[in-house]
């Protein structure tokens, strides 16, 4: 033990000294029999160590003087080594343990670091839009959401996709099931699915031109399908189930429901319910149904990415931003109608909540146009949601002071943040005007947030139908090359009701069919103006 320490101390000496005298010093140590003498030598070597490093810098790099070479024996090859030191085989074990420990510590340090250079929060903070929209790359949205603080930034990727489709009365629920030729991306997805299922090159080659014709952005799909056309096997099923359970337990807003879902999936696996399935799409759909049955949440979706993901080649960040800006410019940021109706009632119909950094000016211009009206109607009947900052941006026009709209809790990183309206807009005259929000069964996500928050603050009257009921924000999590799972991971809580509209939808104050909502709201606005 003492000898070991002595050797360690010797090794720590400057190389010049160590090579020249190390072996001799050890031989002297070996001559001392008594423990006391050994201890004295240990003290001596410690002092020598500090002396050599602190006071003898001129000798640090000194190479040993060549000792008298041993006469080589005839026929025995002689080797010359630069350094006589060789690690013993036993040293590899502590070396391995040490490397692993350092590696693990580094990993843990990165994970728990407060400097989240690599963390991209934005995909976590997407207000959910209908699930049929193929997942688009989330990264570019980081920039689009601006350098905003903790504000739940938004579903820009989803809203971007939503904007591709013309505004229709399509509801998210309907759209889960089948086909809507009006949405090119979705159509492309179903086409590529069919291509996959037919599993023949001919079917794929037929599909390709058609898909390309629908939208040039989806031409990558068939190639991707053919590249991943291997059958699903039991090992991958196990992997996908385990991955889904792990992600649910980590991210899903309701931990107990996540446990329940996990138990159900494992029970199905136990009963070999999946053994006959070799098609990934069938497997993904089945898992989604079983999760919905167990967890009562139709927004947890297992997605077969083999057919859905490669909608278009990933663009560089700047091009993504440019693409988004172009789409917004072409669609006037989805602000479809800005009108002044009879009796000086303002009417604003917009079909998403786009990113403030891109569409803030369009939104502000619309609100400015309606600034002189005596009442205002926000038509959200075709609004598929989007960016929570835009919710706050528009709500700002209805208040004369910053107002607390929502609390967000991201379970994955245990992070809380709040959404507030901004500072009052100078010259705005709408803060005390009657306001109405039109809703339909397809009003979704951020649009529901707008309706719900203003209803809770008793600032608007909701007219129309109960909304679709998307209260949590979610994000996709990759499981393997072929599957991912979309999980609602951000809990939205209204500070007044202490709850949200998840699953229930937002109840209107005046319940009428969506088609009659505008006329009803106009009547209500007129009567409230006449009362004044």
């Amino acid at each position, binding site marked *: 033990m003492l000898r070991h320490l002595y050797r360690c101390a010797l090794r720590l000496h400057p190389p010049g000294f160590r090579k*020249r005298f190390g072996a*001799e010093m050890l031989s*002297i140590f070996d001559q001392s029999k008594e423990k006391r003498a050994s201890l004295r*030598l240990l003290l001596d070597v410690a002092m020598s160590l500090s*002396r050599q490093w602190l006071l003898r810098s001129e*000798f640090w790099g000194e190479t040993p*003087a060549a000792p008298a070479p041993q006469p080589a024996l005839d026929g025995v090859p002689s080797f010359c080594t630069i350094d006589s030191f060789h690690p013993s085989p036993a040293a590899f074990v502590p070396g391995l343990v040490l490397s692993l420990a350092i590696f693990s510590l580094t990993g843990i340090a990165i994970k728990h670091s407060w400097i989240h250079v690599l963390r991209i929060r934005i995909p976590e903070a997407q207000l959910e839009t209908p699930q049929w929209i193929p997942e688009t790359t989330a990264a570019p949205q980081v920039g689009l959401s601006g350098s905003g603080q903790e504000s739940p930034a938004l579903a820009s990727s989803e809203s971007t996709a939503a904007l591709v489709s013309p505004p229709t009365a399509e509801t998210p629920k309907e759209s889960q099931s089948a086909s809507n030729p009006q949405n090119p991306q979705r159509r492309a997805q179903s086409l590529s699915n069919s291509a996959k299922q037919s599993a023949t090159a001919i079917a794929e080659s037929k599909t390709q031109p058609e898909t390309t014709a629908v939208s040039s952005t989806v031409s990558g799909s068939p190639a991707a399908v053919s590249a991943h056309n291997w059958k699903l096997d039991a090992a991958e099923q196990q992997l996908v189930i385990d991955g889904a359970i792990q992600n649910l337990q980590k991210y899903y807003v309701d931990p107990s429901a996540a446990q329940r879902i996990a138990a159900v999936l494992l029970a199905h696996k136990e009963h070999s319910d999946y053994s006959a399935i070799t098609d990934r799409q069938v497997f993904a759909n089945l898992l989604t149904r079983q999760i919905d049955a167990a967890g009562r949440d139709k927004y947890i979706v297992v997605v077969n990415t083999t057919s859905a993901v490669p909608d278009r080649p990933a663009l560089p960040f700047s091009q993504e931003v440019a693409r988004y800006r172009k789409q917004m410019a072409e669609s006037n940021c989805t602000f479809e109608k800005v009108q002044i109706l009879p009796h000086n009632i303002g009417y604003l119909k917009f079909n998403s909540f786009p990113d403030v950094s891109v569409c803030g000016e369009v939104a502000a211009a619309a609100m400015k146009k309606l600034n002189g009206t005596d009442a205002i109607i926000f038509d959200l009947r075709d609004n598929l949601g989007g960016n929570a900052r835009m919710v706050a941006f528009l709500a700002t026009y209805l208040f004369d002071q910053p107002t607390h709209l929502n609390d967000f809790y991201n379970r994955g990183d245990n992070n809380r943040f709040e959404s507030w309206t901004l500072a009052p807009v100078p010259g705005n005259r709408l803060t005390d005007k009657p306001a109405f929000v039109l809703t339909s069964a397809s009003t979704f996500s951020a649009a529901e947030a707008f309706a719900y928050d203003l209803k809770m603050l008793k600032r608007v009257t909701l007219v129309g139908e109960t909304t679709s009921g998307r209260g949590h924000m979610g994000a996709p999590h990759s499981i393997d090359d072929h599957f991912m799972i979309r999980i609602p991971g951000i809990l939205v809580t209204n500070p007044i009701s202490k709850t949200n509209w998840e699953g229930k939808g937002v109840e209107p104050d005046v319940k009428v069919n969506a088609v009659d909502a505008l006329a009803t709201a106009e009547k209500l606005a007129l009567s409230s103006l006449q009362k004044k």
Partner: protein
Amino acid sequence: MNEDLDRFLPLSPATLHILLSLAGEDLHGYGIMQEVARQSEGKYKLGPGTLYDNLQKLIQRDWVKELGNRPSDDDPRRRYYRLTSVGRGVLSAETARLAAVVREARSRLQIAKPRRA
């Protein structure tokens, strides 16, 4: 030559003892330690750290030369050291200096004694 050597004087006790121990015969490190202990009757103990630190310096100044190991020796790790002519010169100069010191001291002490008495 002597002027050159004088700037190294006085020698530190360790250096003096090492040079002195090598004055008789070539020794390995452990041998030097034992010889130093013997010469000083056990009063001056030189640890290996101090020994090799000094040897390093002495070799660099070319006062001592390293001979490598001797195949006949039982421990192949041992290396032998020999005093060079320069080293011998330094030792002589130091001895002369010490002799002068001793002489001076003796004469002073002899003068002092009667006064005290």
